[in-house]
């Protein structure tokens, strides 16, 4: 019962008892008095009434005070404690100072304070622990994503708790594998169960303490459809009591390696045992022909036929076998897909640091397949030798797409290296590599060779063909971006430009910056903003891959979802990036006095022009548009997107996801166009602008209809 209600009832009972006592007393006295004592009776009744009133009043006052000084504070205390327990641990219990509860509220207050403190430290500890778990989880996720092996973590019911992308790839599963799904629906059941049984038995018997492999075991598994063979390792996860709680498997796709080994064995068998019989026949026939002089002409002819038939068979057979053997990839030579700028950059840095050689990267980057480390060693060594031989310390590094190979070309001013000299260099060993690997071995591992040829006037180059990438990123994620609609602002492209001497110069001799922007949308005047800008320098008809500009820009507005499929840039990615007021002046500085080139240039230029005053820069240089030039050169078609133009001119499209990627492709397209323009009699910048203007006029007229 609530204390205050209890108090009320107690005092009510006291009041009732007092009333009854006074009433009964008064009635007894007055009934014992004689009739004549009417006056006294009246006095007694009045006295009784008065006493009753006094008693009731006193009891009421007492109740009111006790309720005020004890009942209410007690109730407040209870409410306060309840608040602390159920709602707010930091709540301070407030009790009016006039209470008569002695030290109770203070004691309760201290108790609550201690409780709150204890609770806070517990939740702080939990928060910290959660944070560090989260951090460890993230680190683990990063490590897992970088691993070359597929990794999957399961509990003992084979439910998947964690996996990396490589696991998806190796199991050939598109999209989500799905956490909590059973591993056994992706990998064949028996090898997994067998490996798990071996490990749990090992742990149950305590053998894992002494076992050289601990709680790990190797197994060969396969995907459930049996098409891919996986070379796997399973490790048991033990809890603090050493009881198994789950397992980790790591695995690699062994299908190709096993198939290659099998093929190599078969070829070896056929090349040895399979050729014994025909060689035997051949030898017998040749020996008989040589020794038996007394043969008839018919007999001789029969043996000659044997020699001819068997040697032809041997020749054909060996040719087939060696052709097959060339394609066998064996051994665990680590080859990966490599983006050429990463490789060439690495070489350029080493040459500069160790030999003070200056290497400039040119051309459109390519994806190739190889071992980065030994390729860097090989080229670094060869370039230094060329430097000493040709007396130069200045080189150009370029990757170029061929029909079957990607070429790494090293160019210099001077004479070619004779094949036998180059060949003798290849006998050098790589210093820091184990096993005395020679430069020639590196070539052999890449199934290639190298040669030197004259190139341009007075220049020579080394050409190293390499296998193209197995899975370049564009085909890897299958993402191809839709093209922007053609965009013309006729004012922008037709505005007169004061070119001076520049206008009369041949197109190849002019310095360009080929650039591209990504934006939040198509309407700059309606608030769309630049989110990325990139450019690459083109000098003397060469793309200077190493001299590029690339920035993300904070547009200070949300990036519309619809536009992300064009550029793949999200709010998160531009969050900490500088605003356009910082980036545009940097870009202007990068452009300096170059001529600007872009595909659909009017679009990008419009965005730049609108920001001019705000950024205190002007873009008043000459501008060439590869879209307009494409229309001018190829008026037989309406297909003039960057992809169309690149395809038409044979520019390999790789890594076209970013402003820089598009700039590089545009630069490649532009250089090819210069050749075609020259063939059409368009030689100077003036003439190129003139050609563009005719197209703008045609399009303007079309737009008016």
């Amino acid at each position, binding site marked *: 019962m609530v204390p205050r209600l209890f108090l009320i009832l107690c005092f009510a009972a006291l009041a009732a008892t007092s009333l009854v006592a006074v009433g009964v007393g008064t009635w007894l006295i007055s009934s014992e008095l004689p009739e004549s004592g009417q006056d006294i009776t009246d006095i007694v009744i009045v006295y009784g009434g008065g006493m009753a009133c006094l008693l009731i009043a006193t009891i009421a006052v007492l109740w009111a005070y006790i309720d005020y000084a004890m009942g209410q504070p007690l109730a407040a205390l209870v409410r306060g404690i309840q608040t602390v327990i159920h709602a707010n641990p930091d709540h301070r219990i407030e009790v009016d100072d006039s209470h008569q509860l002695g030290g109770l509220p203070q004691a309760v207050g201290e108790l609550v304070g201690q409780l709150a403190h204890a609770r806070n430290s517990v939740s702080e500890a939990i928060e910290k622990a959660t944070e560090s778990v989260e951090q460890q989880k993230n680190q683990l996720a990063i490590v897992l994503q970088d691993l070359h092996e597929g990794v999957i973590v399961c509990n003992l019911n084979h439910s998947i708790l964690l996996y990396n992308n490589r696991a998806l790839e190796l199991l050939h599963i598109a999209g989500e594998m799905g956490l909590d799904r059973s591993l056994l629906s992706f990998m064949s059941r028996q090898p997994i169960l067998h490996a798990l049984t071996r490990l749990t038995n090992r742990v149950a018997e305590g053998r894992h303490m002494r076992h050289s492999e601990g709680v790990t075991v190797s197994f060969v598994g396969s995907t459930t459809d049996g098409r891919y063979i996986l070379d796997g390792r399973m490790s048991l996860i033990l809890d603090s009591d050493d009881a198994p709680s789950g397992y980790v498997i790591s695995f690699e796709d062994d299908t190709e390696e096993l198939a290659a080994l099998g093929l190599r064995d078969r070829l070896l068998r056929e090349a040895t045992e399979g050729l014994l019989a025909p060689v035997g026949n051949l030898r017998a026939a040749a020996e008989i022909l040589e020794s038996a002089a007394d043969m008839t002409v018919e007999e001789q002819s029969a043996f000659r036929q044997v020699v001819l038939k068997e040697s032809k068979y041997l020749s054909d057979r060996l040719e087939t076998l060696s052709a097959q053997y060339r394609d066998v990839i064996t051994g665990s030579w680590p080859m990966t897909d490599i983006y050429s700028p990463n490789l060439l950059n690495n070489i350029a840095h080493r040459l500069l640091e160790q030999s003070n050689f200056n290497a400039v990267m040119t051309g459109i980057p390519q994806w190739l397949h190889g071992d980065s480390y030994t390729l860097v060693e090989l080229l670094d060594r060869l370039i230094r030798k060329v430097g000493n031989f040709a007396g130069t310390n200045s080189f150009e590094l370029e990757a170029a797409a061929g029909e079957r190979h990607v070429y790494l070309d090293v160019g210099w001013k001077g004479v070619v290296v004779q094949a036998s000299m180059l060949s003798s260099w290849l006998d050098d060993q790589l210093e820091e590599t184990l096993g005395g690997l020679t430069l020639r071995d590196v070539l052999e591992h890449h*199934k290639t060779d190298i040669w030197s040829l004259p190139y341009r006037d007075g220049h020579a180059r080394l050409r190293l063909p390499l296998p193209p990438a197995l899975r370049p990123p564009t085909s890897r994620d299958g993402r191809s971006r839709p093209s922007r609609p053609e965009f013309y602002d006729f004012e922008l492209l037709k505005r007169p430009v004061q070119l001076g001497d520049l206008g009369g110069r041949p197109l190849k001799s002019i310095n360009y910056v080929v650039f591209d922007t990504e934006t939040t949308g198509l309407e700059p005047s309606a608030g769309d903003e630049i989110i990325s800008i990139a450019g690459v320098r083109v000098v003397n008809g060469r793309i200077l891959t190493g001299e590029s500009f690339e920035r993300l820009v904070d547009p200070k507005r949300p990036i519309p979802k619809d536009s992300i499929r064009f550029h793949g840039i999200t709010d998160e990615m531009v969050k900490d990036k500088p605003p356009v007021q910082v980036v545009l002046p940097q870009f202007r500085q990068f452009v300096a006095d170059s001529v600007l080139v872009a595909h659909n240039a009017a679009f990008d230029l419009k965005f730049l022009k609108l920001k001019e005053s705000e950024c205190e820069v002007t873009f008043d240089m000459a501008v060439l548009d590869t879209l307009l030039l494409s229309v001018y050169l190829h008026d037989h078609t309406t297909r003039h997107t960057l992809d169309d133009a690149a395809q038409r001119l044979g520019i390999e499209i790789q890594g076209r996801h970013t402003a820089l990627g598009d700039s590089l492709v545009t630069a490649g397209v532009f250089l090819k166009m210069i050749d075609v323009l020259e063939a059409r009699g368009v030689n100077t910048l003036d003439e190129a602008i003139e050609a563009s203007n005719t197209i703008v006029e045609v399009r303007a007229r079309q737009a008016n209809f």
Partner: protein
Amino acid sequence: MAKSILVVEDEPNIVLSLQFLMKKAGFDVRVARDGEEALAAVEERAPDLILLDVMIPKRDGYDVCQTIRSNPDWSGIFIIMLTAKGRDVDREKGIALGANDYVTKPFSTRDLTEMVKKILDSSG
């Protein structure tokens, strides 16, 4: 005057066959057994066609080819490379360094003779 052929090979067994076949086809045949001998022979008198093995001592076939091509006077010499190296990249290297054709071993002697006849007959 008969067309002249220079056979550059270091394996006597195949030299025997090549020499025999080309002579029989009516060509003037000389033989060089390594790269330096080959260049000396060209220097002495430029042949119309060279059958050039890649794997020869001293200067290899690629080097001989490259050296011949660096002299404009010898640009008319037709060079056929003979080699056991059959990869795409080997053929590409041979052609890049100036060979007109590339034949992988083992080859049919009859096909090779036909090929040489055709080239030298059409070159007038």
